[in-house]
């Protein structure tokens, strides 16, 4: 009896050791292979994207899950490396929350690269998923952003008329896009041809029309002075003389240069305005998207 009980006790002891050993393998193995997501997010929040990526890379491939893929893509998104971000986000499973977030962020990356077509396609893909109320509001915000970026004000107006401004997540951005739309409609494009014509009539006037007052006045004064030099040369040395040819040539070069300059000034002014408005749209959409999604 004693022998039997002793035998049972020993086998039980060994059995317990075996359980402890297998459990410890499991626990340690898990710690080694799984990246610490909370810590990764902390690194991302502190703009240490390379360190966050390194932390995730330490994990074995079998442990690759949607969160890691999303966060890897997010590191590249933050570094503005769209190709790498899209590479990881394309591997995400469809119809998940992370997939939705990645689609919105991908659209922002395309917008940043001025690729409106792909940005819109991505949002279309996003709209096909089952979306919550907040997510639908975000989608509408993107649609208004696209219309404004393409300067389609009528469509933008009709979409803006559906804004309710009663949801914390997007109300500020709805207001901002509404104000931007009003501002963009008021901004009249400067015609490069009008600018060139005005500069032909009065040197410098084209640049003033294009909004470059200082440059316009400067060009006008220089043209007038060079003209005065040419007139003086004509009076003193005659029309067929080297001083006149030289001064008249200089004046002509400056005069024609000013006309061409006015043409491009108007074009540049239009581009500057558009770039400014475009960046405003992008910034508004980034803020709204990151408020809802971001690294979380």
């Amino acid at each position, binding site marked *: 009896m004693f022998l039997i009980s002793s035998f049972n006790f020993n086998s039980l002891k060994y059995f317990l050791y075996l359980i402890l050993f297998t459990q410890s393998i499991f626990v340690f193995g898990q710690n080694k292979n799984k990246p610490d997501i909370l810590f990764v997010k902390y*690194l991302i929040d502190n703009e*240490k994207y390379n360190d966050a990526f390194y932390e995730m890379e330490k994990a074995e491939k079998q442990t690759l899950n949607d969160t890691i893929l999303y966060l890897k893509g997010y590191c590249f998104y933050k570094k503005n490396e769209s190709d790498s971000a899209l590479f990881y986000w394309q591997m995400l499973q469809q119809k998940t929350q992370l997939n939705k977030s990645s689609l919105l962020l991908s659209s922002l990356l395309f917008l940043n690269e001025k690729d409106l077509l792909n940005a819109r396609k991505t949002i279309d893909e996003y709209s096909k998923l089952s979306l919550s109320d907040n997510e639908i509001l975000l989608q509408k915000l993107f649609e208004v952003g696209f219309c404004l970026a393409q300067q389609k004000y009528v469509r933008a107006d009709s979409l803006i008329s559906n804004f309710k401004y009663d949801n914390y997540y997007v109300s500020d951005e709805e207001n901002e896009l509404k104000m931007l739309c009003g501002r963009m409609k008021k901004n009249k494009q400067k015609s490069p041809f009008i600018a060139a014509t005005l500069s032909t009539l009065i040197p410098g006037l084209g640049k003033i029309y294009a909004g470059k007052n200082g440059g316009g006045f400067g060009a006008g004064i220089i043209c007038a*002075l060079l003209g*005065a*030099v040419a007139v*003086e040369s004509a009076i*003193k040395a005659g029309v067929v003389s080297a001083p006149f040819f030289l*001064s008249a040539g200089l004046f002509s070069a400056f005069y024609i240069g000013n006309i061409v300059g006015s043409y491009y000034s108007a074009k540049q002014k239009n581009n500057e305005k558009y770039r400014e408005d475009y960046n405003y749209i992008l910034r508004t959409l980034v803020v709204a998207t990151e408020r809802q999604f971001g690294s979380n």
Partner: protein
Amino acid sequence: MLPKGSSAQTNSIKFADSLFAVHKYYEASIEYQRNIFYANSVEEKAIATISAAKSSLFLNNFEDANKTMKGFLYANVSDSIAIEARIIHSTCAYLAKDFEQALSQFFQLEFLKTDTQKTTQNRFLKALILNELKRFTEAEIELKKWINNFNANTHFKDSLINWISEKYTKENLPRLKSIRKAILLASFLPGFGHFYCKAYKEGAVNMLLMLSAITFTGVAVYYTYYVAGVVVGYGLFNRFQKGAIHRMDFLVDKYNYEAIRPFNRAVKDKIIEIQQLKKPM
């Protein structure tokens, strides 16, 4: 994930230290950052921050080290840790060429006054920072204070103090150019601002252009082409003069930077030499 306050947390610090010990600084820096994130107390966080900055220093990533130290929280940490943090921060800022920040950290270190020995031991760092800020008189005083604190024989200390006194004499100090003087010269004497900054070729070209413009004005006025003389001649002269004045900022900065480099290098080398000599003492 490491539970806060657990033994795993302590193990992680030990793990980071072990990585640091075998010169795996990048891995160590990540582990230290993990410790910062999971720290249970302000002290733990402070120690991990200092170690993370040290790892970045060893990786020659000075900007990152400086940035890490900027996030150091001084509230509720012991004086000894605060002193070490100030010294490390000052070093990181100095190496990241953020000299004002480096000096500010050193001033705050002196303000603590609780560990004057550690402050005095690191006075050479303050001298190096002051040298970079072109405050040579103060740097000389700091170096002498540093040497006077050595636990060495008088002969050794005297020889070092003599070296410093000689190095910081007016003749041996880098002769810096004054921006005001350069602008005055460029305004009134064509090309002389450039010559003052030892940009001889550029000065010669500038002088030639300005003299040509003024000659043109003279000739035009002589032949009664008053408008041409004033508009073309004086207009060009004015442009060249303004260009030269505008350029003085860059040329003076470039000259001064190049002038202080060998001086600061020599002082730095001497400090390293002294540190090596000090070791067996």
